[in-house]
């Protein structure tokens, strides 16, 4: 079942004016029911605009927006079966935690006894029962975060929108809240649409991720999918760390292509879409999937020079130069490969783990 869907969605701010700005361009996206779905992208990419359109806080310029089969394109926020956890929480400062959580239910005309019962359950769900009578300004960021969650979940929305809810918290709390959010989503079975610019957060929590850049959808997939098989240079670069190499197609043989990285190596890699001989492409390789050996050892790859070595604790990071392009390699400490260590100036053989090279569109 589809929880939310946008078709041909465009959003232009100051339409017609000299400062017109197209925040979203011809956007198509389907979000399944019971999914933890993340909109991921750098700031200003349009992800928050998309969320605000789903919530009804912004009008769309073109296209349609449906929620559980109902066209909500022209509906105001109060008419949508959707609730939002706002970035700075936007808790009502003059109301206690209990009244904040009860607000949505009261607006829906829920009977008083039922409201109080539901509020108690929400308080327990977010572990805030002891704070029911406190005012928001007497609480910490993490506590406010939980109240905002409980307030948005209390009316049992079909869709919960979360606008970077963790960005105001410190690292430790953020990591804890990630697990709690994920657990909460599973417990309630409500579809979560989560906006973030933090790729680590997205990978850790999501069932599926949509990567957005400059108002355009770049790629949709599971975290593994997005990380292992980035389709574009942007996705490869934005999600995790990635080595991006310029290469030229020298031959195509069925599902495999021979590629030349000038001055470095001849590489074979599987391809997902047709490529022409002579075409320029980008290759993406994760730093942890490079294999370093002493120069002269025969590995399928090329020769590079070490220019810097950084000790990271659980790994060592080498910066390499190969044929005018730079590479980063992560070698774990200990284990077979860890026994080897290099210093700047060394020449090394660089190999690639099988299946580690992805051809991405530039």
């Amino acid at each position, binding site marked *: 079942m589809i929880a939310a869907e946008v078709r041909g969605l465009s959003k232009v701010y100051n339409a017609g004016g000299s400062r017109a700005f197209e925040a979203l361009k011809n956007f198509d996206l389907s979000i399944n029911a019971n999914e933890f779905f993340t909109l991921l992208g750098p700031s200003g990419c349009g992800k928050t605009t998309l969320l605000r359109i789903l919530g009804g*806080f912004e009008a769309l310029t073109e296209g349609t927006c449906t929620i559980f089969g109902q066209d909500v394109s022209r509906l105001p926020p109060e008419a949508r079966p959707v609730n939002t956890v706002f970035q700075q929480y*936007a808790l009502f400062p003059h109301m206690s935690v209990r009244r904040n959580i009860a*607000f949505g239910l009261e607006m829906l005309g829920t009977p008083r006894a039922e409201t109080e019962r539901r509020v108690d359950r929400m308080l327990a769900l977010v572990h805030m029962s002891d704070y029911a009578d406190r005012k928001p300004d007497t609480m910490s960021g993490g506590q406010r975060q939980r109240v905002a969650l409980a307030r948005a979940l209390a009316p049992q929305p079909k869709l919960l929108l979360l606008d970077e809810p963790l960005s105001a918290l410190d690292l430790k709390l953020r990591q804890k809240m990630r697990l709690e959010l994920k657990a909460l989503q599973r417990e309630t079975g409500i579809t979560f649409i989560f906006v973030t610019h933090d790729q680590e957060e997205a990978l850790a929590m999501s069932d599926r991720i949509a990567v957005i850049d400059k108002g355009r959808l770049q790629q949709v997939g599971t975290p593994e999918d997005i990380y292992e098989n980035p389709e574009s240079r942007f996705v490869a670069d934005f999600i995790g760390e990635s080595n991006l190499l310029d290469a030229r197609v020298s031959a195509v043989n069925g599902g495999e292509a021979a590629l030349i990285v000038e001055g470095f190596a001849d590489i074979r890699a599987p391809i997902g879409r047709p490529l022409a001989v002579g075409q320029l492409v980008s290759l993406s390789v994760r730093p942890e999937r490079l294999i370093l050996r002493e120069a002269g050892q025969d590995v399928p790859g090329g020769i590079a020079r070490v220019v810097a070595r950084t000790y990271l604790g659980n790994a060592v990071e080498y910066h390499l130069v190969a044929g005018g392009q730079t590479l980063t390699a992560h070698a774990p400490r200990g284990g077979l490969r860890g026994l080897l260590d290099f210093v700047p100036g060394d020449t090394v053989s660089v190999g690639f783990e099988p299946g580690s090279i992805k051809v991405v569109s530039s």
Partner: protein
Amino acid sequence: MSVRQLSFSSRISPRLTDLGLLGPAIAVILVFMVAPMAIMFVYSFLEAAPYGGVEWRFTTDAYTSILFERDFLDDSLTFTPDYLVVLARSVFQAGIATLLCLVISVPTAYYIATRPERQKNIWLVLITIPYWVNLLIRTIALLFVLRGDGPINAVLMNLGFISEPLPLSYNGFAVCLGLIYSFLPFMVLPLYSAFERFDFRLLEAAYDLYASRRTAFLRIVLPVMRPGLIAGSLLVFIPSIGSYLAPDILGGGKTLMIGNLIGTQFQSARNWPFGAALSMILLTLTLLVLLWLARRAGQQTSDCR
């Protein structure tokens, strides 16, 4: 050596420094507020001297005569509502003026607070411009506008809307208009700062939780802006209730307010104790309003609903 050690507060004892900083303010309050009020309080319990001033004999006559008239012949007291009417009229006029100021100021303040920074300053300066001219001059100027032969009536009569001049001056309407005109900025400015601090995301949150525009205004905007609303209302109501100029000039002395009554006692009527007693009543009334509001505000913060 830290900055703290260098500051002169460590050389002189902290208490002395505090006294030095606060001293002028305390002196001003003592000389210009506490002392005159104390004199007024004492005078209100003395006998009036025939040509102004007081006789140093204790009596509560001044207070009695607010409610009762003493018969010349048999010294009996009869109830007279005259002064109560003046007091009630003052409260009513000030109340209406405060209410209308609120109605005018809420949209005005909202508009200014939601402009870009540069425009905001221009609007705020415009709001305060009337204050560069003396209140007396402005009030008299307003009278010229409202008079029977003033521009408003002239225009309306020339256009044929009316055949007789409208009675715009020398009545309660003119007084109320004068009060609004005099004190409007005292309402706009606190409301402006309240709107400026208002987090409009709270409104989005309210809509998101199925509140209608009306409900969101009543249950979110009004309570959150409450301190600004109270401050503005007090700043208009308190000077309005004791206002002297507007009723005197625009009311033409016909719609007497308590400020005029008090003024008359110290001038032509030469009954200082009675004027002092009326002042004490006005002061008590104002303090009661303040106290009531302060208590309500206190309940708001401790009440968890």
